[in-house]
Every structure is written in C-alpha cells, then in structure tokens.
C-alpha cells in the first residue's frame, strides 16, 4: 500500500484531533468518511483490491459491500473491547477480529454469490490486510464509543465503496461500453436485465480494462476531488480575507513592556 | 612572429561581427561636455572617498577621490574646472539606479596639474611602480574594472609562467581595442614590457582574434622593430574567446580551476587598454582620465571610435556621433552579448566603458516571447564552460538553489552563448543571474541568522547569569538586613562609624575563627567572579570572531563557573547567617556598603524614571490634544487618571523635596536610599498610571474614530481635561526639577 495510516492521518493534524475526540461530532464523522478523509481518494488505502477488481460495476460493488460490512463489524467489535485490550497486543487482536469478519463474509459470498466469489477470488480474503479497515480500527474505533465507531465504519466503508463503484463504472463504460452488466451475480435474477449497453458495437479498450487503466482512472478521480477542494478553499480564503485578520498572536521574546 | 600552438575550448558561437561600421572613421575626439559626471564606484570593490568639496577648483589630472581600502581605486579630474556637486546621479549599471558621483564643470582651459612620471622605473622596486600605478587610478579596462595594483600584486603569489595580453575582443560591434592597438601600438608594446618587468613571467603572449588584420600587422611591425620577445598569437574568431578563462585555455591549454584566479596557476591576464594606461602612467605620469570607446549601432549616422574623457555623458557622445533619435530603440553599454541596457543617456562614461551601442529596432529586435524548453541541447553545445544550461534553467525556474549550485551554476560566465542559440528564446542568462543572486542572498541571510541566533543565545546566557547573580545578592542582602536588624538593637551607635578598621578590630576580637572562614569564602567568591568575568569576556570575543567550537566550550565553562559562584555565595551567606550576633561589625559594614549601592541605583533609577515620566506626560499631552481635536467621549476617565497622577506626582515631589536637602552626604545614606527608593516606587506608580492613561486615550481615539456622533457632548470635559493637563504638566516639571536637585545633592 502506498501510504501508511499514520502518515495519512498526520498529514492533517485537524483530522487526528477530531478523530481522537471521544465524542466526535456525527456530522463530522459522516463528512470525514464520505469526502474529507475518504479512504480511497485521500488516504489511498486499500489500493491493491481497488485497482484489481474495479473492472466492472458489479465487481466493485461486491468488494465494496464486503469491505463495508467488515469495516462496520470490526469497528463495532473493536470499540466494544477497546478498554480491555492491552496496548501491546492491540494490533494482533484487531487483526484477529477483522479476519473473523472477513471469513464470515467470504463464507456468505461463497454461499449466495458463488460466481462473484470466484471472480473476486483472492481479493475477498485479502480484505483482512486492507489498511483502511485496520486503520479505522486503530485510529478511531479503539478510542471511541460503539455508536460513533459504527457510524465511522459505515461512512468510511461507504466512501470506499462509492469510489470503487465510480471507478468500476468508469472502467466498464470506457473499457466495454456497458454499465451494470452481470449485476445478477450480486443481486440475483431480478437484476439480469439491468445491463445497459451504452455504446453498440463497442471495441473493448483493453487498456482501461487492465489494471493500468485503473491507475489513470483513480488519478482522475483524485484530481477531480482536489479540484473541488481547491475551489472550496479559495472560497473560504476569500471569505476570510473579507473578515480580516484576527488579533495578533505575538508574544514578547524579551520580557514584558511596562 | 613566432608561431604558437592554439588550443580550443568547448562550445562558443559565431554571431554576426558587425565590426566594420565603427572602423570607417578615424579616432574621434569629442569636445568637452558641459559637465563631467564621475561615479565614485567605477571599479570592483569599495567606492572611492572624495578628496574635494563642492566649489573646489581642480586641475586636469589632479586626484579628486582616493581609494578606500585594499580593493579600491583613485579617481582623477579628467579636465580642469570646478566641482559643482557631489550627489547621486544615474550611473552605468544594469539596474538603472543612481550612485554617488562627483560632478565637474570644465573651465575649458585644460590646465594640467604637475605630472610625475617615473622615468627610472627600471631601477625602482616593483612595489614602488605598482603603487605608482595605483596612485594613477589604473584599473582593468576589459570589463570588470579590477584594480590593477591588486591584480599585479596577486600575480606574485606564484612564479608566473604566462603573461597574457587580451586583445581578442570577441564581442560583436566593439572595436575599441582594435583601434587602440592601431593607434597606440608602440605605447602598447612599451606598456606590456613595463608590466612584464613588474611580474617577470616566463612567457609573454598577446592573444588576438584573426578578424583584426590591420591591428595584427601593426603589432607585428612594432614587435619586430623593437626586437621584442613578446609572442603574438592569432586565435580563430569565436565568441567568447576574449573571456579571460577561455583565452587562457586557447593560449595555454590550461583551465583555471573553479573558484580560483588565473594567478593561482601562474598566469596573469591584462587587457590591452590597461597596458596602454600603465604606459601613460609611468612614462608620462598621466593618470587614467580618458579611454577609447566605440560608438556604434545603426541609430548613429557616424559610428566611430572616440578618445573620450571619463565622466562624459553618453548623450554628449551620441550627439557627437550624430544620433537619429527616432531610430534609437535600445541603448547598450558594452557589446550585444554581455552589455546592459541603459534607461537614459545621462549616464557617464567610466573606466570600463568600451562600447556604446545605439541600436535600432531592426538591428536588435525585441526578444521573441519565451517558449518552453524542449531540452534540444543546443545551449549545451554552445556553452564555453561545459555546463548543462537546460538543467540549470530547470533548477533556476523551480528555485532549487542547492541543485543549481551542484550543477556548477557559479562556473557560468554569463557570456550569453546559451541564450543566443536557444530556439525557445529563453532568457537563460537572466535566470542564472537571478538564481546566483538568490543563492548569494540566501548565504548572506544564513550568515546573518546564524549571527542573530548566537547573539540571542549569548544574551540569554548573560541574562541567566545576571539573574543568578542577582538572586545570590538578594539572598545575601536578606541575611544581611536580618542581621542588621539584630545588630541595630544591640549597638545603635555602631552604625555611625563606617570606618573599616574599627569594625574589623571589633570583628576580629569577637569571632576571629568564623571571620577567617567567611574571609576565605569571600576571597573565593571574588576569584570566582573575576574568573567568570574573564570567561564572559572570552566568550564575547569568541562570538565576535565566530569561533563556534570555542563558543560552546566557553559557554559551558561560564555556566559552570556561575554555578560554582552561586554555591560559594550561598555558602558565604550561610556562614554569615550562622553567626549573626557574634560578628556584629562585619554585617553592618556589609550592610552599609550594600545600602550605598542600592541607594545609588535607586537614585539613578529615579532619575531615569523621572525622564520617562516626563516623556510619558508629553505623550499623554499629545494624546489628549489629539483626543481633544477628535472630541473624544472618554475624557472623563483620562481626567480622573490625570488627577490621580497629579496626586502621586505631588507626593513624589514632597518625598523628593523633603529628604534631599536634609540628607548629610555620607552618614545618612541609608535614609536617603530609603527616601529615594520610596521616590522610585512613587515614580513607577505614576508611570504605570500614565501608561494606563495612554492606553485609555488610545482606546478613546479608536472609539472616537468609530463613533464621532457622541463627540459634542464631551467637548466641555475635554476643555477641563486640557486645563488639568496643563496643571499636570507644571507639576511634573517641578517633580523633575526636584529630582534633579536630589541627584545633585546625593
């Protein structure tokens, strides 16, 4: 993975401060998970499955859902035991919890969506090693009560899944000219006609279907987010400039002036 | 003519030469201008110091400015006349800024001062001749204006293998050296031999480009006539073969190591103009007051070379060469490759001005807009220093100073070959110049911030030491006063006798043993103190000399010494405390002495406080006036405070008045000190009050500014305040007077 959780969080000290507050604001948690601290776009966590399985919407949605469930489950569990785990064995314990949830999900998918399970292959068990999950467990759930932790897990999972699906849709559209093909693999027979052939006679753009295309797609998504953030920042800066600077924060180096 | 091997250097370009235009006409001699402007900084190094005052009459060739330090030069009057001004005038500098100049109004008589040639220079010591050259204000006339005496002295560092005379003149358009060689061939050869006599090089070589056939022929003729050993080497025409380092490589095959001078590898390089100036200085005794300059460019109808007096404004020369004002688009001092543009033609000719290029639009068109660097590598092929210009551009653009330095930015000679060939019209040289100055600024800033840091830390260390000392003193004093209290009860009259001998006698009788220990301790303390002082002195010295390793060691010593001292002092205090009753005489002695010191201190403080109070009152007054003008609403409060201040001032006055006349000089010092301490505290209080008032007035002003509509209601109050202010003022005046009195009496 490209960035470890620690540095990702440290990049913005405000975030850690907010994360560490036991009574985090729910609105903040939602905003953090979906946008500001999005695990896929900002923290660049879980890149490996993200780049590997987002060739179609259904793959992305499948993995996204699995990750979401594991994330919520592990966050709740970790939050519940947070006061009873010694610091030294913290991480192994968290990994055990995550592994258990992942195994559950794997078995469930094997049972109900066997084909999708086969398509996703190794990437379902690999959810255990998804830094996003361990990161949230360590950075948030181990310091917050159950309810905020569950919300945080859900929102982070949702943010992750949203990017996965967006990337999947992008790659499916450009790579194969369709959208929502094979949705029945995940959603059952009802979804069999969901496949929308956007372009007829479309030549498969292999480059986009292959993992290198995912890099470019993700790069574009990150660029888009940065662009929006930049605009917002400029707006805030303009607002602040209008308000004028606040009082001086200067201290006297050389004692008091009488 | 001996044939010699000519080496080559990397890169180089072949721009259009454009040399023939200015060689059509013979050497011109322009008339005297209305005024001559002589910048004090015509050379590298410190500016000269003017020797004349406004209104002085000077003769032609008389010194008007002297050198200022080692790397500087003299300046002489180019003609006889009157000094009309010493002021800032625009000078020939790429920035277009002004600098200090001596302005000389010629009287037209051209009366020479007494000339002092050195006819017997061959018998004289080299240093004497060199100092004569320095007195004549000779500087390198090739471009940089390096004082010649410094260069010649530098050449003695190492035995010289080559003495090279630079006659290459590789820049397009410029023909001043060419003309000089043609006109003054004999003088040049004699000048070279003069310099050779001074430096004693193994080999003397004139390097000249093959595009000056007439000059080469003239030189050859003269050299054979003189039967000279000077070698004439003709190098192929290529820009920048006239660069010092490039010419050295062309003639010797050697490279001047980066960051060093040619003298470091036993080579000396002089321009032809400098040699001729040296000849004139020694043979004729003429100082450097004129030079040959090329006037060229398509905006001139009569391009030519002129022998021109230093200080002549460029405008005067342009008029002489028949300038077409409308054609003039760019005015350049120097050549098109390394010269710089002028904002105005009012700037004067200086010792290094070899060419004035008045170009029209067609000749030197405006540069095309900069395009992206495509890393085509043409600049690299052209760079005479074998640099990677495109890489340097990249680092310059992104301000990566360290990387630029690593890529040898400082070996760039700014010859402009890279910019010349750049297909994207990137002003590479400007990027490099900017980056070089950024690096220099950063270095200076680093030195400055290091210094600031050292001084800040030294100050902190000193303050800590002072605080520790004070604390120790305070402890000692506390104990002393405690013992004094005890002692005064027992022996009241003892306080009157301040003579030490008596005290010591009683002291020694009372407790000889203890006294010994305290004495010892005292001696220790004294030694410790002197040691500390010494160390501190050393520390300051070290800081001044910037010896980093010493500083830290010394600081350690100082702090150790301070600690030891504090320990000693506390020990001493303990010792004193342990025997307060047994040695009554010792303590009063101390107490009196100590009381004296604070008394003096307090008095001083009081004086200072009084001064401050005075100033503060002035400030209040000012502020009040302002408030009044602005019709401030809060004058009430100020008035109240002024009243308070007045009261305090009254008290202060009383306190100051009463004790001062009644204080006998020595015996009642403790009382005086007490009174003065009181006074000091009073003044302090008052000062605080005044400060408060000041702050309130400030606030008031602000509020008034925001809400002027309440102003009318308080106008009366303000009047009253004004009256009271006047009263306060007078009170303060008396207060200050009394303080003065007390100072005098005490």
């Amino acid at each position, binding site marked *: 993975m490209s960035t470890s959780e620690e540095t990702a969080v440290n990049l913005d000290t405000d975030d850690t401060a907010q994360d560490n507050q036991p009574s985090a604001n729910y609105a903040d948690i939602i905003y953090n998970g979906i946008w500001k601290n999005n695990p896929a776009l900002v923290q660049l966590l879980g890149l490996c499955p993200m780049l590997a399985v987002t060739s179609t919407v259904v793959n992305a949605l499948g993995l996204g859902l699995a990750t979401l469930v594991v994330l919520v489950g592990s966050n709740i569990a970790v939050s519940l035991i947070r006061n009873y785990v010694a610091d030294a064995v913290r991480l192994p314990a968290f990994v055990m919890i995550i592994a258990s949830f992942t195994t559950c999900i794997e078995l469930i998918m094997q049972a109900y969506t066997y084909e999708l399970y086969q398509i996703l292959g190794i990437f379902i068990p690999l959810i255990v090693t998804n830094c996003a999950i361990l990161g949230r467990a360590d950075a948030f759930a181990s310091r917050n009560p159950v309810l905020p932790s569950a919300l945080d897990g859900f929102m982070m999972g949702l943010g992750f899944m949203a990017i996965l699906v967006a990337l999947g849709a992008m790659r499916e559209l450009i790579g194969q000219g369709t959208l929502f093909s094979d949705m029945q693999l995940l959603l059952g027979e009802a979804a069999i006609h969901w496949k929308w052939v956007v372009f007829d006679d479309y030549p498969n753009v292999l480059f986009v279907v292959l993992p290198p295309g995912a890099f470019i797609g993700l790069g574009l998504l990150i660029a888009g987010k940065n662009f929006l953030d930049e605009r917002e920042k400029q707006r805030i800066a303009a607002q602040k400039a209008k308000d004028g*600077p606040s009082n001086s924060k*200067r201290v006297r180096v050389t004692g008091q002036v009488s | 003519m001996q044939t010699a091997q000519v080496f080559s250097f990397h890169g180089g370009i072949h721009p259009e030469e454009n040399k023939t235009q200015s060689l059509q006409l013979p050497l011109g001699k322009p008339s005297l201008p209305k005024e001559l402007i002589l910048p004090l900084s015509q050379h590298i190094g410190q500016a000269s110091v003017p020797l004349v005052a406004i209104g002085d009459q000077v003769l032609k060739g008389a010194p008007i400015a002297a050198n200022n330090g080692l790397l500087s030069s003299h300046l002489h009057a180019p003609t006889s006349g009157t000094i009309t001004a010493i002021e800032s005038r625009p000078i020939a500098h790429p920035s277009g800024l002004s600098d200090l100049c001596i302005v000389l109004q010629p009287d037209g008589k051209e009366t020479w001062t007494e000339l002092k040639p050195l006819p017997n220079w061959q018998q004289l010591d080299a240093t004497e001749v060199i100092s004569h050259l320095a007195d004549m204000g000779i500087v390198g006339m090739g471009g940089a204006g390096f004082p010649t005496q410094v260069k010649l002295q530098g050449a003695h560092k190492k035995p010289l293998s080559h003495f090279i005379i630079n006659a290459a003149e590789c820049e397009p358009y410029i023909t001043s050296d060419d003309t000089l060689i043609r006109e003054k061939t004999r003088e040049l050869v004699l000048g070279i031999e003069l310099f050779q006599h001074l430096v004693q090089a193994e080999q003397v070589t004139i390097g000249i480009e093959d595009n000056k056939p007439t000059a080469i022929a003239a030189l050859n003729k003269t050299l054979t006539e003189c039967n000279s050993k000077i070698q004439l080497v003709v190098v192929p025409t290529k820009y920048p073969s006239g660069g010092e380092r490039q010419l050295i490589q062309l003639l010797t095959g050697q490279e001047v190591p980066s960051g060093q001078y040619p003298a470091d590898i036993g080579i000396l390089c002089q321009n032809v103009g400098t040699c001729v100036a040296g000849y004139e200085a020694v043979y004729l005794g003429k100082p450097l007051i004129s030079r040959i300059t090329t006037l060229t460019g398509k905006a001139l109808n009569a391009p030519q070379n002129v022998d021109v007096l230093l200080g002549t404004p460029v405008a005067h020369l342009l008029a002489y060469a028949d300038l077409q004002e409308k054609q003039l688009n760019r005015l350049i001092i120097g050549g098109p490759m390394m010269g710089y543009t002028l904002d105005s033609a009012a700037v004067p000719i200086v010792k290094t001005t070899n060419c004035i290029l008045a170009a029209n639009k067609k000749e030197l068109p405006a540069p095309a807009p900069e395009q992206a660097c495509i890393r085509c590598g043409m600049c690299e092929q052209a760079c005479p220093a074998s640099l990677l210009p495109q890489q340097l551009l990249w680092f310059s653009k*992104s301000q990566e100073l360290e990387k630029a330095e690593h890529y040898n930015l400082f070996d760039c000679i700014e010859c402009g070959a890279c910019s010349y060939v750049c297909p994207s019209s990137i002003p590479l040289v400007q990027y490099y110049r900017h980056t070089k100055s950024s690096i220099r600024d950063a270095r200076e800033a680093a030195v400055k911030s290091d210094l600031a840091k050292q001084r800040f830390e030294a100050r902190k260390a000193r303050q800590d030491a002072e605080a520790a000392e004070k604390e120790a003193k305070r402890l000692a004093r506390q104990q002393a006063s405690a013992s004094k209290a005890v002692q005064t009860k027992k022996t009241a009259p003892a306080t009157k006798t301040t003579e030490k001998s008596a005290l010591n006698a009683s002291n020694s009788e009372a407790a000889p043993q203890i006294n010994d220990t305290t004495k010892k301790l005292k001696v220790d303390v004294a030694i410790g103190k002197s040691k500390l002082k010494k160390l501190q002195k050393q520390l300051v010295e070290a800081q001044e000399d910037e010896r980093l390793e010493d500083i830290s060691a010394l600081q350690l010593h100082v702090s150790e010494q301070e600690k030891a001292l504090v320990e000693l002092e506390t020990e001493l205090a303990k010792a004193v405390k342990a025997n307060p009753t047994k040695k009554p005489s010792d303590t009063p002695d101390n107490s009196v002495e100590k009381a004296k010191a604070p008394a003096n201190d307090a008095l001083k403080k009081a004086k200072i406080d009084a001064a401050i109070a005075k100033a503060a009152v002035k400030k209040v007054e000012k502020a009040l006036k302002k408030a009044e003008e602005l019709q401030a609403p809060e004058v009430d409060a100020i008035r109240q405070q002024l009243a308070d201040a007045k009261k305090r001032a009254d008290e202060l006055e009383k306190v100051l008045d009463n004790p001062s006349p009644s204080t006998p000089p020595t015996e009642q010092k403790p009382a005086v000190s007490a009174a003065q301490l009181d006074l000091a505290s009073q003044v302090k209080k008052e000062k605080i009050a005044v400060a408060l008032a000041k702050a309130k007035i400030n606030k008031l002003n602000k509020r008034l500014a925001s809400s002027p509509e309440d102003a009318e209601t308080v106008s009366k109050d303000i009047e009253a305040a004004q009256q009271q202010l006047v009263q306060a003022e007078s009170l303060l005046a008396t207060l200050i007077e009394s303080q003065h009195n007390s100072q005098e009496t005490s």
Partner: protein
Amino acid sequence: MFTVLLAIGILVVLSLIFGGILGYAKVRFHVEGDPIVDQIDALLPQTQCGQCGHPGCRPYAEAISNGEAINHCPPGGQATIQALADLLDVEAIPLDGDHGTETAQRVAVIREDECIGCTKCIQACPVDAILGAAKQMHTVIADECTGCDLCVEPCPVDCIDMVDVGITAKNWSWDKPQGVAAQSLNIIATDRSTEVSQ
C-alpha cells in the same frame, strides 16, 4: 514430528539472526538527539521576533516538530514555509495572516536627537543590536538588527522607526523572468508559481 521441530528450529534461528541484525542496526545507525528540531531551527530566520507566538525561533522549531503549523513565521515568509514544507514533506500552505504579514527586510533606526537614553530598547532587543548607556543617546547596529521591531513598542518617546532596507546598485539583482505564459489557471502542478521539482 521431526518436521515440526525442524520448522520451529529454523524459525527460531531465523528470528535470532534477524533480531541480531536489527539490534546491530539500532546501535550502528543510532541517531543522537532530535536533529529535526535543529534542522527546522536552521531554516527559521532567527529574528527572534515572537510573531509566531513563541518566545524565540527555537521554541517555534520545537513546536513545529511537535505538530504546529509551519505558516506562523511572517519574517521568513513564503520562502521559509516552502523550505519547511520540503524538509517535513508536507504541503506548503500560505502564511497565516493572524501572525502578521510578510514585509520587506527592515532595520530599526533610532532618531537620535529624540532619544532620551532610557535603555528600554536595549533591554528589548533580542540580539543586543542596540548600543548606548543610560541617559546617553542610543543607536542601532544596522548589520546586527534582525528587523524584529521588538524595540519599537517599549520606546517611551517613539523615536524608533522601522526602515526598509533599500535597493542599491550593490545589492540589486535581476528579476526572475516571467517564464512561459505568465497567466494561467492552476489546473496542474507545474502551472503553479513555485514549480514542483522533477
């Protein structure tokens, strides 16, 4: 059973070897002190002005190493922020206006005929750049002055001015050329004013 023991044995040996390597590395590459603070301190302008909210540059350097924002130093300005951002590998942010604005290099100058010799400025100067004695006129050693303006406020008679260090022919330098297309939108990184390195 033997294979199990063998596996365990191999793992134990491996762990010992790697542990040894790690232990050696810790001793061999041990770093003394906290050099990052020194590095940060070296980048700060050492004006000791306190505008950052800390008493001196070093305390601010320590605060930065503990996570304080890097944009609280007006004397250093954007250049210092950029240098700190490069050092700490974080994003360069604009100067925090709450701490003051970046000004040109200035020095304090005492109007000497108005000076009353109170020594207050001498006490206020963090770098001992003011000379003078009580009741004597004071003066600023321009070369030592950092332009922190701490001496201005204590002066009871307001006789200290902060004067911009002017540009003379000696310290003048060429501007940086505008480059390709001076006006453009900051869509990509290389469009920004401080171009990113390779």
